C-alpha cells in the first residue's frame, strides 16, 4: 500500500513535469495515517498546475485538516505519460501526502468545475481501482462525492457519484464526513448509508431518484422511496468573517497557473449579468471585512513567502471598502516588495485608478470584458456598462501607461444580430485609435498599442435567465468567427477565439440529463480524458457515443419552453425560478435589472428578508423615531 510510490519513484524522470506527482510542498499537511478516524482525498479532474490554482480545493483541504480526527490529502489527474507509467507498473493512482492509493480512503471528493473534465473523473476512478459506476461499488469502496461550480446540474454524472453536495461545501463537509463513518461503523448496507446521508441538508443522492422521459424529452425526476426529499437546497456560508479561510496555503514548486497568494475578499456578485451562472449560485454577495482581510493577508504572506497577493472575488472592485483595503495593503507592504493583483476588474475608470494604485511596478496588460459590441445587446444580457464608461476606462488605462489591453467578448448571445458583431469591431477599432492617439501625444512614454481580442461562444448554463436559450449550429458560429477574423486585422489588433464545437459540447453537458451518463462513459472507454486541453479532445468520440445512444447535441442545446420541466429543477439554488423567467422576459425587451445593493430589490428570492425591505424598514424606524 504505502510502497506504491517507491515502485515508480525512480521512473518519474521519464514523465513530463514529474514535480506534479511528488507532493512535499511547503505547508502541505501530512498526518499520521493511523492516528485519525476519517480519511478524505480531494480529487481534481485536471493536472496539478490547474487544480492547485483552484481556491475551493485549498479551502476544503485546510478546513478538513484543521480537525484533529480528519486527514485530507490531494490527488490530481495524471498527464497521459504518467497514466501510462501507472498502468505499465500496475500502480494505482495515489495521493500526494501519504502516497496512498485511492481505495485506502473513506471518501473521495471530486471538484466539478468544468463540463469537459467529466471524462477525466471516470479515468481517475479507474486509475484508482475504484469501480467507475456507483452501482458496482461495494461496502469497501470509498464514498465518491462531488461538488463545485457545475454541481448545479449533476445529472450527466449520476451513474458515477454516490452523492453530490449542492452549494458551498464548507457549510456541511465536516458533518458529512463524520456522519458517514458513524453509519459505516454500524455496518449498514451501502444503500442504507446513502439513504441516511441523503437526509443531510445539501446532500443529493442521485440513486434515490428516477428520471422520466416523454417522447424523447426529459419530463421529470421523482424520488423513488418514502422519506426521500423532493428538493435539495443549496447550502452556503452566511458570514465570510466567521468562515474558515486557509492562511497557510500550500506553496507549490511548480509554476502553477495562479502562482501567488490568493485571498478571497468577497463571494458572489449581484450585478445580474444574465449569462453568468456564478452570479446566481453564489448569491447573496458577501463581503469579508477589511480587518479580516488585512489580518489574513499578513498571515498568508508570512507563511508562504509569496511576493504577490491576489485579492480574489467574482468582482473585486465591488467590495465596498476596496480602496481602503488596497491603500492599507500598499502601506503595509511598501518595503517588502509585495505586489497586489486584482483580477476581474469592472469596466470603468474607477477600476483603472485602482489598478494604477496596485500595479505601480508591473504595468503590462489590463483586461476588460465589455462582452457585447452594442448597447442594445449589453442591455439584453444586463451587462451594466455603457460605451461612455468603457471608453473612459480605456482612455484612463492608456493615459496611465498601459499599452496592452485585453478585451473579452462573447458571440452567439441571445438576441445577437449582425449589427452587434459590427459594433464589436467598431469598439475594438475605437479602442485602438484612442490608444494610438494617446501614444502620439506622449510618444516616449508608451510602447506600441496592442489590443488582444478574445472571443468565446456563449454557453447557456442552468439556473441562469438564459437557461432556455438555444445555441447556434457550428456553421452559424463559424460564420460569425470568420466575419470577425476578416474585420479584426491590423498590426495593433490580435484576435483569438475558442473552438465553437468545444462550446457546443460544453453546452450539451451543462444542460444534459441522465441519458448523457452512458455517453460520457462510452467516450471515456474509447480514450477520452483531459478534454479541457483542446489538443486532447476528439469530437469523433462524442459523435459516435451520441449516435450509439440515439442522441444528438441539439436535444440538449436547443430552445426550451419556460414551462417545461428541466433536469435540474429538483435543486434549489436560492434564486427562484420565477425570477429567472422574469429576467428571461426582460432580456428580450432590453430592460436592465440593477444590482439590489444600490437599487431596489429585484425579488430574486435569495434573501429571507430582501435587502431593500430592510432598508425600507430601517427608514420606517427612523421616521417613527422622529
Amino acid at each position, binding site marked *: 500500500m504505502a510502497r506504491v510510490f517507491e515502485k515508480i519513484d*525512480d521512473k*518519474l*524522470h521519464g514523465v513530463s513535469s514529474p514535480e506534479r506527482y511528488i507532493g*512535499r510542498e511547503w505547508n502541505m499537511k501530512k498526518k499520521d495515517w493511523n492516528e485519525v478516524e476519517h480519511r478524505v482525498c480531494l480529487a481534481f479532474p485536471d493536472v496539478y498546475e490547474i487544480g492547485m490554482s483552484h481556491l475551493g480545493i485549498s479551502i476544503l483541504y485546510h478546513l478538513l485538516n484543521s480537525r484533529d480526527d480528519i486527514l485530507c490529502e490531494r490527488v490530481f489527474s495524471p498527464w497521459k505519460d504518467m497514466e501510462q507509467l501507472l498502468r505499465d507498473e500496475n500502480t494505482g493512482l495515489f495521493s500526494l501526502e501519504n502516497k496512498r492509493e485511492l481505495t485506502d480512503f473513506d471518501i473521495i471528493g471530486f471538484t466539478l468545475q468544468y463540463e469537459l473534465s467529466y471524462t477525466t473523473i471516470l479515468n481517475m476512478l479507474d486509475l484508482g481501482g475504484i469501480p467507475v459506476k456507483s452501482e458496482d461499488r461495494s461496502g469497501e469502496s470509498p464514498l465518491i462525492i462531488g461538488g463545485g461550480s457545475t454541481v448545479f446540474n449533476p445529472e450527466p454524472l449520476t451513474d458515477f457519484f454516490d452523492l453530490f453536495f449542492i452549494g458551498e461545501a464548507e457549510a456541511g463537509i465536516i458533518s458529512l464526513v463524520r456522519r458517514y463513518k458513524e453509519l459505516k461503523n454500524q455496518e449498514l448496507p451501502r444503500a442504507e448509508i446513502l439513504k441516511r446521508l441523503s437526509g443531510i441538508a445539501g446532500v443529493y443522492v442521485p440513486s434515490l431518484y428516477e428520471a422520466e422521459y416523454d417522447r424523447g424529452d426529459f419530463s421529470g425526476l421523482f424520488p423513488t422511496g418514502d422519506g426521500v426529499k423532493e428538493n435539495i437546497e443549496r447550502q452556503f456560508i452566511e458570514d465570510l468573517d466567521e468562515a474558515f479561510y486557509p492562511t497557510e496555503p500550500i506553496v507549490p514548486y511548480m509554476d502553477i497557473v495562479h502562482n501567488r497568494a490568493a485571498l478571497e475578499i468577497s463571494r458572489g456578485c449581484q450585478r445580474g449579468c444574465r449569462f453568468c451562472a456564478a452570479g446566481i449560485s453564489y448569491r447573496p454577495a458577501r463581503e469579508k471585512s477589511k480587518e479580516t482581510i488585512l489580518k489574513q493577508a499578513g498571515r498568508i504572506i508570512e507563511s508562504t513567502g509569496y511576493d504577490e497577493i491576489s485579492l480574489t472575488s467574482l468582482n473585486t472592485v465591488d467590495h465596498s471598502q476596496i480602496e481602503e483595503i488596497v491603500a492599507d495593503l500598499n502601506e503595509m507592504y511598501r518595503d517588502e*516588495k509585495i505586489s497586489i493583483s486584482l483580477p476581474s476588474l469592472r469596466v470603468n475608470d474607477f477600476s483603472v485608478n485602482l489598478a494604477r494604485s496596485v500595479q505601480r511596478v508591473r504595468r503590462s496588460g489590463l483586461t476588460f470584458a465589455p462582452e457585447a459590441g452594442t448597447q442594445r445587446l449589453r442591455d439584453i444580457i444586463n451587462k451594466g456598462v455603457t460605451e461612455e464608461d468603457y471608453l473612459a476606462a480605456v482612455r484612463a488605462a492608456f493615459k496611465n501607461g498601459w499599452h496592452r489591453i485585453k478585451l473579452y467578448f462573447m458571440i452567439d448571445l441571445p438576441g445577437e444580430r449582425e449589427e452587434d458583431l459590427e459594433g464589436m469591431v467598431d469598439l475594438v477599432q475605437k479602442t485602438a485609435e484612442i490608444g494610438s492617439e494617446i501614444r502620439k501625444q506622449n510618444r516616449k512614454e508608451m510602447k506600441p498599442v496592442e489590443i488582444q481580442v478574445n472571443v468565446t461562444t456563449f454557453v447557456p448554463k442552468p439556473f441562469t435567465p438564459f437557461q432556455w436559450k438555444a445555441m447556434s449550429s457550428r456553421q452559424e458560429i463559424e460564420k460569425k468567427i470568420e466575419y470577425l477574423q476578416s474585420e479584426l486585422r491590423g498590426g495593433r489588433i490580435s484576435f483569438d477565439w475558442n473552438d465553437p464545437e468545444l462550446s457546443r459540447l460544453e453546452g450539451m453537458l451543462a444542460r444534459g440529463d441522465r441519458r448523457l451518463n452512458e455517453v460520457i462513459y462510452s467516450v471515456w472507454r474509447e480514450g477520452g480524458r483531459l478534454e479541457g486541453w483542446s489538443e486532447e479532445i476528439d469530437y469523433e468520440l462524442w459523435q459516435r457515443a451520441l449516435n450509439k445512444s440515439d442522441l444528438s447535441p441539439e436535444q440538449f442545446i436547443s430552445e426550451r419552453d419556460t414551462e417545461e420541466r428541466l433536469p435540474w429543477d429538483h435543486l434549489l439554488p436560492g434564486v427562484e425560478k420565477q425570477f429567472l423567467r422574469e429576467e428571461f422576459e426582460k432580456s428580450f425587451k432590453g430592460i436592465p435589472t440593477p444590482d439590489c445593493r444600490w437599487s431596489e430589490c429585484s425579488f430574486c428570492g435569495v434573501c429571507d428578508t430582501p435587502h431593500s425591505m430592510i432598508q425600507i424598514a430601517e427608514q420606517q424606524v427612523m421616521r417613527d423615531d422622529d
Partner: protein
Amino acid sequence: MMIRAGFAKKKRLRYISHLELLDTMRRAIRRADIPGEYSRGYNPTLNLSLSQPLPVGMPGGSEYLDLNLKERIDGEKFVQDLNLYLPAGIEILRAKFVGHDNLKSLQALVDRARYIIDPPLKDEERGRDLLQAFAAKDELIITRKRRNKEDRDYDLRSMVHEIKMTPEGRWSFLVSTGSRGHVRPQEILQGLRKIESELPEVPIVNFYREGMYVSHMSQDDELLTPLAEEILEER
C-alpha cells in the same frame, strides 16, 4: 555584502527544476526574514544565484548559493534560520558571511563537478577494469548532441580529471563543468561505451552530484570549494 552557502538537494526533491529551486529558495528566505537585497527595476526580486543547474532527477550533495544582503547576518545564523523554513529535502549545510561585493560569481568560479554513478554492471571487477581502461586512454572522442545546432565532437578524456571506484563499488568521476569546458553527466557513459559498447543505459536518477569545486584557484592537489577562505578573500 553577501552570504555564500553550500546546500544539499536530496533525493526526495530531485525532481524540482533549477528555476523551481530558485523560487523555493527565494520564498524560504522571505519566510525566514533573512535580510536579502532586491534587484532594482520593474520587478524587484531577491538577488540570489545558484551554482550550475542540476539535471532534473539527480540529487546533489554540495550545491552552492550566493545571496546579496542589505544587512549583516552570520553564516551560522543563516544556516539555522533558513533550514527552519526550507522544505525537507533541501538543507543548508554551511554558510559564510562575506563583507565585500568583490566575489566572482558561482557560475564563473565553479569548474569541477564530481558525479557518483550507480554502476550498470553487476560484476564489480568488470567495472574496475572498465574504469582503468578509461583512465588509460589518451583521448576519447565523443559526439555532443546540441539542440538546434549541429552535433559536435570533443575529447571527453581531457575533461575527466579523476576516476575512482568508491568503497561501495560506485563509480566516481571528477569532470570539468561550467563555461570553460563542460561535461554532461550522460556523456561519461557515452565515453565508457566507446570502450564497452554493450554497457547498459544509466538513468539520470542513478547519478549523484557529490561536490562542486574550484580548480583554477587551487594551489596544490587539493581542490577548493567555493566556500574556501582563499576564495572568499577580497582581491
